[in-house]
């Protein structure tokens, strides 16, 4: 951790196109997690924003719907050049990686019939399934500090899992109700 720069020592991206290029390079370094790279590059090396500003943006990016990293890059771009900056950062985050992933899909369509390739994808999908379980387990550690009692958290999570994964109830019917109940419970317990 470097010492956070003070606000007046901050540098500025020169133009939306610089934002676009920077975010493209960031996105291409990100395998399974762009956030850590964004923090290191933009706060510590480029010093476009302070650690506190980053954390503030990150908190908002996490609360709002949408992919966290997409929200974060848009907000950082917006801080500097308003809507133009937000679009430039967003395009940087998505455009080149999208073209790349579509090229991979085309390549895969060519060679996907090969039993080895099909097997490799089967293995990767299983590893990815494990990866999402690991993310969920990591997030679970923070439940100990949740204002809701752990038993409530577990019951709520179990209920949502059963409804969505096993009974295949549409998310639109589950998330607003479960989310609203949880938020109200949390809100009332935060009072103390």
């Amino acid at each position: 951790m470097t010492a956070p720069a003070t606000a007046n020592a901050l540098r500025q991206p020169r133009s939306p196109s610089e934002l676009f290029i920077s975010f493209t390079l960031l996105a291409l370094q990100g395998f399974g997690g762009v956030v850590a790279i964004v923090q290191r590059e933009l706060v510590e090396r480029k010093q476009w924003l302070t650690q506190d500003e980053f954390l503030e943006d990150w908190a908002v990016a996490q609360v709002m719907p949408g992919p966290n990293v997409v929200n974060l890059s848009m907000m950082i771009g917006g801080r500097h050049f308003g809507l133009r900056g937000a679009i430039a950062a967003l395009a940087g985050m998505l455009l080149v990686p999208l073209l790349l992933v579509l090229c991979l899909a085309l390549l895969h369509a060519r060679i996907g019939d090969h039993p080895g390739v099909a097997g490799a994808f089967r293995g990767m999908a299983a590893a990815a399934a494990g990866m999402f379980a690991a993310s969920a387990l990591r997030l679970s550690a923070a439940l100990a500090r949740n204002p809701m009692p752990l038993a409530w958290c577990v019951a709520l999570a179990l209920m949502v899992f059963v409804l969505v994964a096993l009974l295949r109830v549409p998310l639109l019917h589950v998330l607003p109700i479960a989310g609203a109940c949880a938020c109200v419970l949390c809100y009332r317990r935060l009072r103390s």
Partner: protein
Amino acid sequence: MTAPLLVLGSADWLALLMQFMMLSLLSVGGAISTSPDMHRFLVQEHHYLSQVQFSESIALAQAAPGPNVLFVALMGWHVGMNTGSFSAAVLGVAITMGGILLPSTILTYNAARLAHRNRDLRAVRAFKLGMAPVVIALMFATSWILGSAAGRMDDWPLWLLAVISALVLWRTRLHILWVLAAGAVLGWLQLV
């Protein structure tokens, strides 16, 4: 399992767009949290994608650089390709990506400025903390659906790989790419 052959009219494309726009507003905790519902809609209800195409979309996006949300583009790509035309595949990408990104980014961009001032509002904290168990449940649901789409219930080597991947990534700081690569190699050698 072969890919379905589709004939999609404009009403179908519109329904697909609407579905992804709705999921965009529900994607608290990232686009991947809504993947169980994408599976329900694309694979189970409409048969727009095969199980294998669904899993491969997520696996390929995980293995490629860039934000994880690009798995959505691959799903749109496959839907279009299943109608048998390259231009429909491009349309599919535009519809799924536009749908999953536009509502959430517009909302976040406009809410970001409000959130700065109201960072410590009890309601915002309650929302963040209350949603935590729900997001955890959706991550487990993603893992479950990806695991069961990758193999049959009696396919124990594949399940073992998923469980070991989860434990390794949960307990160690090993990079995701190594775990994905191990899965790919084991699959290539037809060991899982």
